[in-house]
């Protein structure tokens, strides 16, 4: 299966800090910020770079202020390179 890498964009000015997205996130990558927005609410921020783009947060957000971006990594990236033979060999593992 191709690995999916995701990222989210949060409109922090409209966030009221209800933390529903933090509860819904299976990766536990969302947390309330210590800072506040112009209305005075602590807003949500992404603290871990492990988003899978599952869209749970965007679905539960009552304000609809989370945008989810997805990138599918079809290409197998090399995990090791063996040099010093006639030609460089790239080694990839599984899916």
């Amino acid at each position, binding site marked *: 299966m191709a690995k999916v890498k995701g990222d989210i964009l949060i409109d922090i000015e409209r966030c009221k800090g209800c933390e529903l997205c933090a509860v819904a996130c299976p990766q536990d990558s969302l947390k309330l910020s210590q800072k506040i927005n112009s209305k*005075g609410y602590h807003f949500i921020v992404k603290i871990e770079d492990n988003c899978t783009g599952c869209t749970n947060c965007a679905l539960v957000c*009552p304000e609809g202020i989370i945008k989810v971006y997805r990138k599918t990594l079809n290409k197998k990236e090399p995990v090791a390179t063996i040099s010093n033979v006639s030609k460089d060999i790239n080694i990839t593992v599984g899916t």
Partner: protein
Amino acid sequence: MRELKLMKGNEAMAEAAIRCGCDAYFGYPITPQSEVLEYLSNEAHKRTGMVVLQAESEVAAINMIYGAAGAGKRAMTSSSSPGMSLMQEGISYIACAEIPCLLVNVMRGGPGLGTIQPSQGDYFQAVKGGGHGDYKLIVLAPSTVQEMVDFVKLSFELAFKWRNPVMILSDGALGQMMEKVELFEQQERIKTIESWATVGKPETRERNVHTSLHMDPEKMEEINIHLQAKYKAIEDEELRFEKINCDDADIILTGFGLVARICQKAASLARERGIKVGVFRPITLFPFPYAELNKLADHAKGFLDVEMNAGQMLEDVKLGVNGKARVEFYGRMGGVIPSPEEILAKIEEKFVGELV
């Protein structure tokens, strides 16, 4: 046709104001009710010609209401706790001059500038009169976004029926909460001119004057006696409350607004454990349903009053129960919302083993 929408409490309330034919809104933004002014300034004038104005302060806003409502128009304002405190002088004047208007208080944690999280710390201010003199507001406490919508319409009806300011006592959580609401049809703005409205003097009648200044003490007492008679009549006619599973309950939870919903969850958790718990929710805080509580105290063994303050409605609950049963209190302050589990733990701590 039913029109269902998912709306934020504040926006739903603003939409209801437009739909019920409100003529004017004067307000000043304050979290957690800024969305009301935001929503109205985008939509209201285009749709119904309703006047929406951001005043320079809350003090100005309430006096603009005094003027607009004095001319017989349907005027309203909304604010949160510190803003409501600023408005108290004007509210007292309006109550004395018997001018109908709608005030919405989306409560936040206090005292002082406090916090922006939900609280119920303005119960005394709203119900017992935060301003000077012997006056009362009709106070309605919604507990769902649907009620925020319905009560706007109801408030204007009550205000004009009794010529008295009406307050909707909501809180920050209800204001920010998104819920399903059923909206009523758009109504025409009312064109009829009330007999007391200051709209210019025709030759056929004496001029109308709105004032709250009466130098003659006898005249002032007369006005006070008239006001008190009116409040008595309101107490007799406008009582509203909700009883949930109270008929067989040993323990009754009392709470208004948002807390009543948390209490319902706590009550169902308690019933799973075999404790018979009911919920009593006053919808009108003035007039307060004292007699109904007293009736419940005949078979209920204990009352637990739950609030998001230090026990303000507790005094009224005790007056209602009048010594017939034990009354305990649980409250969180400063913007913290109690959880159903906390309330259940309190029921078990205070009553289980002794009363049930």
